[in-house]
């Protein structure tokens, strides 16, 4: 009994890594261009299917397929931003919402058309079942790797944001588009690079998701909600906050499931609503590094 609880908390923490990766991509885009990407979850599922195709066509292990899926998703992100999303950005927040909602529908239907509604899974092989023993608790290697990847991704994004010329450009464009243009920054290009980065993280999240659980074209919306919740719990615009938000959400879901298997998702929503009620701006509202 006791061990079960500790076990489900640990699993929840590790699952939080996946939610944090989903959330980090959302947060990045919102921070740079105030765009709420409704298609974010579906893009994750797209990345998982892309991984499936690449892995089976080339006989690659899913994590090796990342070498192809990450750049492909980044290019899709840049193109999507330059060709479609840049045209929707203005002081009005509604057009990008509508357009990304439309994109979400298109991706879902496209995936359904190509891959059918049958659940799929990326074959994680040995890694999928391997575990290590930490103080008497068995911890799966795949969830552990997923969590470590999330920490590295967030540390990397944090470093880009606050320590590089690209991050400076992100923050400048976010502060004041016009003056950023005066500095020679083409905001349409800067936005494109931000979306490329976001979808590179989406690719990682998609492959890990697909190795961990089965997926079908319809589940993107649910992942989007978890990502949103993690962002809001952690505090909008705070990258490390998204990790904390993801972990809290993951732990809440797993404890809920431990009490009653049907309560998993509900428990996550309840904790989210509770935190929103007590701290409407999230636990760690925007602070700079």
């Amino acid at each position, binding site marked *: 009994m006791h061990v079960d609880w500790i076990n489900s908390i640990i699993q929840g923490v590790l699952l939080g890594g996946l939610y944090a990766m989903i959330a980090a991509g959302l947060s990045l885009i919102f921070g740079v261009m105030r765009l709420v990407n409704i298609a974010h979850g579906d893009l994750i599922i797209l990345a998982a299917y892309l991984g499936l195709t690449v892995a089976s066509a080339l006989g690659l292990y899913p994590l090796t397929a990342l070498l192809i899926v990450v750049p492909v998703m980044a290019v899709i992100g840049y193109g999507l931003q330059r060709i479609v999303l840049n045209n929707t950005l203005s002081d009005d927040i509604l057009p990008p919402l509508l357009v990304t909602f439309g994109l979400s529908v298109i991706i879902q239907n496209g995936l359904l058309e190509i891959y059918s509604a049958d659940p799929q899974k990326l074959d994680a092989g040995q890694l999928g079942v391997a575990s290590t023993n930490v103080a008497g608790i068995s911890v799966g290697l795949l969830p552990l790797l997923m969590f470590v990847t999330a920490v590295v991704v967030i540390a990397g994004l944090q470093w880009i944001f606050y320590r590089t*010329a690209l991050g*400076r*450009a992100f*923050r*400048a464009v*976010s*502060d*004041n588009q*016009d*003056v*950023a*243009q*005066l*500095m*020679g*920054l*083409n*905001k349409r290009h800067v936005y494109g690079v931000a979306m490329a980065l976001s979808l590179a993280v989406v690719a990682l999240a998609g492959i890990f998701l697909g190795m961990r659980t089965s997926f079908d074209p319809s589940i993107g919306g649910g992942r989007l909600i978890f990502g949103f919740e993690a962002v809001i719990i952690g505090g909008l615009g705070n990258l490390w906050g998204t990790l904390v938000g993801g972990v809290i959400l993951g732990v809440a879901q797993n404890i809920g499931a431990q009490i009653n298997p049907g309560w998993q998702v509900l428990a996550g929503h309840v904790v989210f609503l509770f935190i929103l009620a007590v701290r409407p701006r999230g636990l760690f509202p925007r602070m*700079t590094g």
Partner: protein
Amino acid sequence: MADPLLTLTRLDAHYNDFQALFGIDFDIAEGEVVAIIGSNGAGKSTLMRSISGLITNGASQISYRGEQIGALRADQIAEKGIALVPEGRQLFPSLSVEENLLIGGQIGRSGPWSLAKIFELFPVLQERRDQASTSLSGGQQQMVAIGRALMANPDLLLLDEVSLGLAPVIIKSIYDALPQIVGGGMSAVIVEQDISKALSVSSRFYCLQEGRVSLEGESGSQTREAISRAYFGV
């Protein structure tokens, strides 16, 4: 006179349906300092925004080194070597003092200005390099805004009311730095509401009134009455 660096030809500018500039003819030569004076709302800032590309105009209305640039975007114009110190300073609040300066230099044009040179010109900025730009006094923020524009090593510097809201002693120290800035052959357009200040640092001036040039000439050549009439329209 040398070939003009920048020429405006019958320049119009609009904010949606509202026309703010009417047929402005203007030019500035290499190495020249030209003042633009005019009362509040005359169109001075609109003129600066047009030149720097924040407002797009007809391609042929603005020519720079013989090239028509009126329809280019602000970032493209910045790359050609025109830098604006915008009215109200407009620093990036998420960036430190040093980052505000570095982002000004990210175009990568070569020239005399570097971070070290800016710190030499405004030593107080070096002490505060890691602070948030919003934590500085108004005068120090203005120094950052000027430094940020210089970091691009422009050939033409546009200064829009750098003295706005600053104490006289601070204004003096900023204008005292001007000879060091334009001494290297840089051209500058200085927008000022303070007529005598503007005329004392420039060789020629234009006076705007309700979106039109109401008077222009050599800075020392006009009588006070002529300038007041052009300035206030009375």
